[in-house]
Every structure is written in C-alpha cells, then in structure tokens.
C-alpha cells in the first residue's frame, strides 16, 4: 500500500467513511474529524509509518506539519517518511 492509500485508510477509519469517500482536497473538518480525532489520527500515522510527527494541539498552524487538507497530510507524511527512513 502506498503512503497515500495508507494515510487515506487511517483518515477514513477515523471519520467512519469508506476510503473512496475521502477526497484529497477535503479538510479534516469537512470529514467530521475534531481535535481529538486529529490527535488520534496522528498517533495512528506515527504507528503505521514508524515516524514521529511534530504536532502540538495548542497551535496546529505553527506545527511543522500541514494538516489543512488530506493531500497536505499525505505530502507531509511522505516527507517525514523520506527524512526519517
């Protein structure tokens, strides 16, 4: 499974949606994922890819991890996987 498919699967599970319903341009908010769901998704991503995601719930915009859309999250995870490989 590619990074993209894996990330989408994680987000879909969190949002209780089918992966096919998770479009890359949607935001987590569009998918009904709240701040707790976000923290849980990041945990699942860290576990799935064995990476460490720099994210502070107090200031998501300043964290060095773009969560503005599904595609942004995929890109950020791809970068972290490459860096932390």
């Amino acid at each position: 499974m590619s990074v993209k498919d894996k990330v989408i699967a994680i987000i879909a599970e969190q949002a209780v949606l089918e992966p096919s319903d998770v479009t890359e341009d949607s935001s987590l908010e569009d998918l009904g994922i709240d701040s707790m769901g976000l923290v849980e998704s990041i945990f699942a991503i860290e576990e799935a890819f064995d990476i460490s995601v720099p994210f502070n719930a107090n200031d998501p915009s300043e964290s060095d991890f773009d969560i503005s859309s599904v595609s942004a999250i995929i890109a950020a995870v791809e970068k972290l996987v490459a860096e932390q490989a």
Partner: protein
Amino acid sequence: MRRVVITGAGTINPLGSDVPKTMEAMREGRCGISELNIRDIDRLAIRIGGQIHDYHPEDRWNRQQIALYDRYTQFALIAAQEAVAQSGLTFSGDLAAHSGVVLGTAGGGLQTSDENYRTVYEEGKNRVHPFVVPKLMNNAAASHISMEYNLKGPSFTVATACASSNHAMGQAFHMIRSGMSDAMLTGGSESMLCFGGLKAWEGLRVMSKDACRPFSANRNGMVQGEGAAIFVFEEYEHAKKRGAEILCEVSGFAMTSDAGDIVMPSKQGAARAISGALADGRINKSEVGYINAHGTGTAANDKTECAAVADVFGHHADDLMISSTKSMHGHLIGGTGAVELLACIMALRDGVIAPTIGYEEPDPECALDVVPNESRDAKVEVVLSNAFAFGGLNAVLALRKH
C-alpha cells in the same frame, strides 16, 4: 451560619520547601520549572517540568516509613506537618473524633505503579515488594495524615483530575460549615513526574517543550509539576476562642459539571461555577479583586477561562486581576488548586498579587489584567481560585480577607 477560616498552611512544591519560601518565590516571580531528572528521560519528547529537586526522603523518614510512602504521600505529610504546626492544634478527644482529612489527588501513588510495572513487565520479575498496594492507593496519603495527627472523623480522597484539590477543599469547607466538624485538614498532593505519567500526557499533544506561558498569545501548552499543599480549615468561633492566627476566611464554594466533552472546556460550565461560588459566599461581584486562574497555558483553557470571567463579571472583569501561578510551579494536576491557594492567601493577607510569568505577547482572546511577569502590591477583599478539570468538572473557591 457557621463560618470557616484557615489557621494553618503547609507546602512543598517546585517553588519552595515551605510556605514562606513559596510565597517569596511567587512574590519575586521565580520560575520553578527546569529540566527533568527522571529515568528514561531520553525516551520522552517533553523534558521540562516543575520537579522538586534536592529532595532526600531519607533525611526525614526511616527505611520502614519510606517503604510505605509513595512520593506523593511524602509530599502530603511534609505539607501537613507545616500546616498543623502553624495552626497550633492538637487533635484529641471530641475534636479528634470529628476531625478528618479530605485530600485531592489525581494519580495517587503513581510513582509506585510506574516502578512496579517496570519490575514485572520490563525486567520480567515475578515478585514485587509486599507494600505495593498500600503504597500506591489513592487514599494512602489521606490515611497516613490521619494516623500522624489522630484524625478520626471523615477522611477520604477526591479524584477529579485537575480540580481534585479544589473539590477536596470544598468538601472540607462544607463539613465545617454544616457542623459535621470543627477542624479539617485538606488540600492536595501529586507526583506524576515519572516516565509513565509524562508519556501519557505527551500523547495528548498539549504539553509545551519550553515553558508554561498562560494567557500569552504565543503559549504552546502546559508543563507538569509536582508537590503538595495542605491547610487547616477551622470553624471561626473555635479558632477565635483559642486565639489562633487566622490567615483568611473561606467564604464560598461551588462545583459544576459541563456534561459536554471529556477534554474540551466549556465557558458556561466555568462561568456557572464562578457565579455559584459568589452566590454561595454572598459576595458582590465588585468585591472580587483577584482570581487565581486555572490558567494552564493551553490554547483551549486560557481563552475559555477568560471568556467565562468576562461573562460573569461584565465591566468589573477589566478592574480585577487574574494570574496563573502555573507559569512558575507548573500544573500540579490533582494538587494544583492547593498550591495555588497559597497565592490567594498571599493576596489577602500580604496584599501581594502573584504574577503570570513568561508572559510575552498579549492575546486578544485573553484581554484581562493577567499581572504579567511581576507581582503587584494591591489590597484585595475577596479572591477566587478556579479549577476546571478534564471531564468538565469545575470547582471554584471564594476566600475573604480576615
């Protein structure tokens, strides 16, 4: 109605090993947050905390006692000793029969749990020390205090996460006011600065890696601390008759539940607790000069708390002072309200308002007088102490100058 006063205070916390040292540190705006010294720190992302350094239990207790006292119990006993000594009370006869201890703690003997899980899981041993249960239980500290001072009345532990101490002190206040008891020991203790305790908090991603900056626009989370504070609450006539030194009066208390979210705070829940404490103490809003904020330094708490204060006080919110001493001692979780009550006593008795240190940038969502960085001399008649816990459980105490 029976009135309740405080006639003794004791503490050990990252700012000082007793009340005078703690108040001096608060007055000077000192920071007790430093690099953590705990096992496996290299496996933690968060490496700072309000840890009590240069602490040697063996200077105070023998081997048998230490085998029974978790670190949180040790802190509670140290604080209780100072408080009881200051009060001058001796518990015997009828007084002892009706006096008890109500203590707040969230984690109880968490150091003991952490150490012994290591023993069985990490080291693979199949045997633990025989006193693990009496050492880790959440009521251990309350029980040891009761034994130390012969307190034979109502004694128990309250666990409402970050509001534990305030809930505990509220119970003690009610017991004295209602006539159940003439004197109670109350407060809180916490020692969660161990690998497991910190790792769990790390998971929530609400911890700061560098500092606790409540109300500051650039705040980035909470910092954990450890320690205890214990008080002697006493019925006013009882205290007056024996000529006790009265530190201040406890005049109101209220608790509410948000019935909303397990971690996100609610403005309404907080505001109802604040208004409730005022109503309970028959206090006019305009009398309140200072609020010791819950002020955790998280994005969510600080703006919600400021909005709640603005809602309750209206225009008067701009005239009162509100500070978070967590910027100095960190968040003592179940013990935090107790240590923060010291700042309230200092405000009423000494006319010194403890600052919010680490304050760097104003936040329009926290536009109150947060006493930034330096303490202030001010005469105040009534102060409040806020505590708003995870789980939406809120507890606010109102204190009056005596």
